[in-house]
């Protein structure tokens, strides 16, 4: 601990009792949770909500994979199949991926990482969660009672005139959830601008904070556009007004333009936070500064800004002008460069590091591999002529799952494993975590790699029935999805298990740098007893690196094993002794 001089007046150097007051045990009433303004409690509320939504989305995905085992499925009707993939897309995009990292890990960590006691607007933060819940309940209700069959893209004029499902309720739900993410975005922007601890200059910010900042910019600029666009679809359905319906002179292509103006940047809302997490995890476990910090930080900003100029690459085959297609394609190729910069910088960070292979790092390496494939296959779709063939096929499905699942979810898992001790004060079983990382990686590739080939073969997406020669690839994919599901259930089980039986987490189980590791696990309600004064860059791992090479692992605090329920008030010895075992790993 002595190597972290950031917080002189604080906790953690000497003995510690586990029952010390923290944000979890300070109050236990239901209202203390539902009316809390504490960013950490709101993060936990969000975490529970998005996990439930992820479960719903996953069930829908399982339905899709069951249907696609046979070329002419009879298990579901085509209506049901269409409702399944629509539910999967809507839930996963709007209610899992968009809020996943910002609203949980971001909410929890952003104020702590910059040395603040809370976000700038705590009550707005709580309002954001209520808006999310309201939207989620509305959408789940609409999906349970009748469903929706427009796909998550709500293309006109199908959504406004032809579909006779619960389009209005779902869109209103998505609209409300949009305001929840706008509230989060505003909160983060203000917090990063105004609440940084003394000495924490912009270029000392952890890259996770940079990523959240870039994400918030996208949220703030993009979400209102899709909100009003979807609102007009509702007005078309309810009042019969005429905005996009071609039967009365409207232009459905304009809807696509406005929709993708948000929904393409939304992809970066999902992936940028993951990239931030990967930067933290890689730097920590390589015991090195991130390679090319400024490049990684600015590439986040470049992605956020260029991300607003590429939406037209979703529309090469729709009949937009050939020349606008060429411009959008060019910018899309350019936006690949900042992503490449990040990947190479992460890889270079490991070079000559002192690499500690833990489950967060394994998830992070999985992220980099899968994101590399996802990003490079994005270039296939950015290539105009190749896109004419691949657009709207399973190639697209595979590509964005490599980015969204292989990228966003692996990043989320890396972050969850990295900060779980801080959030809950408990350790998860490391062996199981590594196992689940490998199972997820294998299951994921088995599920989605065949879909690249299916796409090139020409199988269109959103197809319930397909030509029989595509069956073997689909069977492989469905088989892989069950492996992937196992890989996702295992963490669910051991995380829940760890809440009761996990070893007690020390303040800094990874020997990591960063303000969040200087305070107790779980943090107290007000985060910091005194405002920390930052005197060094993020990732100043030099001292730790040198110490570890010299064989000194005393900065890595060992967890206190869970013994029994009566083991409440045991104070902890100096954490140096158990580290000889760590050393041998």
């Amino acid at each position: 601990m002595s190597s972290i001089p950031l917080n002189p007046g604080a906790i953690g150097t000497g003995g510690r009792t586990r029952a010390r007051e923290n944000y979890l045990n300070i109050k236990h009433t239901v209202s203390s949770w539902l009316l809390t303004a504490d960013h950490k409690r709101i993060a936990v509320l969000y975490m529970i909500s998005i996990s439930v939504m992820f479960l719903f989305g996953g069930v829908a995905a399982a339905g899709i994979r069951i249907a696609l085992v046979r070329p002419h499925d009879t298990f579901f009707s085509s209506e049901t199949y269409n409702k399944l993939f629509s539910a999967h897309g809507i839930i996963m995009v709007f209610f899992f991926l968009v809020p996943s990292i910002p609203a949980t890990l971001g909410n929890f960590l952003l104020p702590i990482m910059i040395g603040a006691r809370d976000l700038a607007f705590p009550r707005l933060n709580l309002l954001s969660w209520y808006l999310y819940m309201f939207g989620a309940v509305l959408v789940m209700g609409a999906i349970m009672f009748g469903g929706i069959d427009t796909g998550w893209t709500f293309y006109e004029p199908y959504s406004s005139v032809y579909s006779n499902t619960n389009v209005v309720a779902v869109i209103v739900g998505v609209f409300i959830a949009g305001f929840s993410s706008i509230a989060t975005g505003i909160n983060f922007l203000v917090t990063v601008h105004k609440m940084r601890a003394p000495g924490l200059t912009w270029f000392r910010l952890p890259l996770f904070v940079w990523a959240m900042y870039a994400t918030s910019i996208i949220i703030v600029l993009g979400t209102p556009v899709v909100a009003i666009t979807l609102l007009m679809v509702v007005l078309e359905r309810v009042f019969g007004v005429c905005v996009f319906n071609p039967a009365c002179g409207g232009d459905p292509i304009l809807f696509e333009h406005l929709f993708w103006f948000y929904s393409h940047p939304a992809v970066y809302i999902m992936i940028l936070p993951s990239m931030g997490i990967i930067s933290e995890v890689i730097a920590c476990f390589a015991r090195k500064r991130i390679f090319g910090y400024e490049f990684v930080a600015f590439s986040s900003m470049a992605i956020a800004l260029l991300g607003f100029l590429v939406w037209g690459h979703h529309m090469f085959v729709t009949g937009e002008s050939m020349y606008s297609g060429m411009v959008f394609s060019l910018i899309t190729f350019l936006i690949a460069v900042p992503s490449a910069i990040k990947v190479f910088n992460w890889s270079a960070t490991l070079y000559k590091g002192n690499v500690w292979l833990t489950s967060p790092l394994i998830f992070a390496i999985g992220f980099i591999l899968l994101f590399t494939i996802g990003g490079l296959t994005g270039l296939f779709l950015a290539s105009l002529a190749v896109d004419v063939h691949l657009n709207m096929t399973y190639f697209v499905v595979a590509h964005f799952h490599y980015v969204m699942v292989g990228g966003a979810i692996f990043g989320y898992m890396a972050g969850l494993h990295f900060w779980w001790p801080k959030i809950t004060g408990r350790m998860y079983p490391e062996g199981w975590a590594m196992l689940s990382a490998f199972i997820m990686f294998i299951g994921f590739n088995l599920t989605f790699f065949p879909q690249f080939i299916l796409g090139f073969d020409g199988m269109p997406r959103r197809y319930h029935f397909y030509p029989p020669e595509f069956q073997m690839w689909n069977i492989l994919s469905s088989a892989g999805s069950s492996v992937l599901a196992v890989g996702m259930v295992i963490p669910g089980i051991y995380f829940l298990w760890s809440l009761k039986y996990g070893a007690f987490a020390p303040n800094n189980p990874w020997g990591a740098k960063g303000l969040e590791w200087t305070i107790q696990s779980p943090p107290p309600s007000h985060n910091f007893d005194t405002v920390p004064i930052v005197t060094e860059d993020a990732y100043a791992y030099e001292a730790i690196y040198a110490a570890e090479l010299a064989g000194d692992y005393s900065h890595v605090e060992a967890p206190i094993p869970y013994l029994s329920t009566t083991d409440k008030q045991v104070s902890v010895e100096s954490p140096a002794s158990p580290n000889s075992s760590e050393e041998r790993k």
Partner: protein
Amino acid sequence: MSLELQHPAVAPQRLSHQFEQIDQQNDSYIVGMWTFLVTEIMFFGALFVALTVYRSVYPDAFEQAHNALNVWLGLTNTFILLTSSFTAAMAVRSKMLGQRALTLVFLGFTILCAFGFLGVKYVEYSAEFREHHFPGPNFQWSQTVSSAPAQGDLAANSQVALGAPKVGVNEFPASYQPQQLELHKRELFFSLYFVMTGLHAFHVIIGICTLSTLWLLIYFKHPVVDDYMPVELAGLYWHFVDIVWIFLYPLVYLIGKQ
């Protein structure tokens, strides 16, 4: 400038637990409000884009349709809003200087202006509803469809033909009929008109609620408004509502064909 005028002795402020200093808190509120207004601009921005696109596709129909709007009522509303923006700014100033009575007067006048705006809007809307200009199945267009005045049989027909669309007779939607199409282009204009002005009016209503709450809080000397910051934020919001109208009025009411 706001921060220079601020004097702790005049307006004691409450510091929330997450902030260190009062300046930090005030700055955060201001930055937050501006960020919020950026989202609002994007919100209206999409509608302005739609309006511009459709105007360039259907210049004639949009010109005719916009002629049916009442320019003078719109102008009246522009003046009402501009005045209210001025009084809102004055309210902020007097609140900063600690002049409670003057703050109440200026705030009250701003609220009155907002109600006046809605009143004029009500007159406009009711006229448009009377003429069946509200989009939807009852939309009608009583003027001739052709851009040139009374021409041949079309002019004679159109008076009769431009009724409510009949749906379901044919394999194709009745809306593909030519006069229906012309009708629908006007309906498209009025759709955008009602969505945009309606959304703006909704913002005015939110503004009335906010300002009235502030007025009552100040009147009853609630400690929340000891500080000038709530008035400042409401003022910013109100200026935004005004600015949206400053763009809306010429783009919807005034501009004809390019």
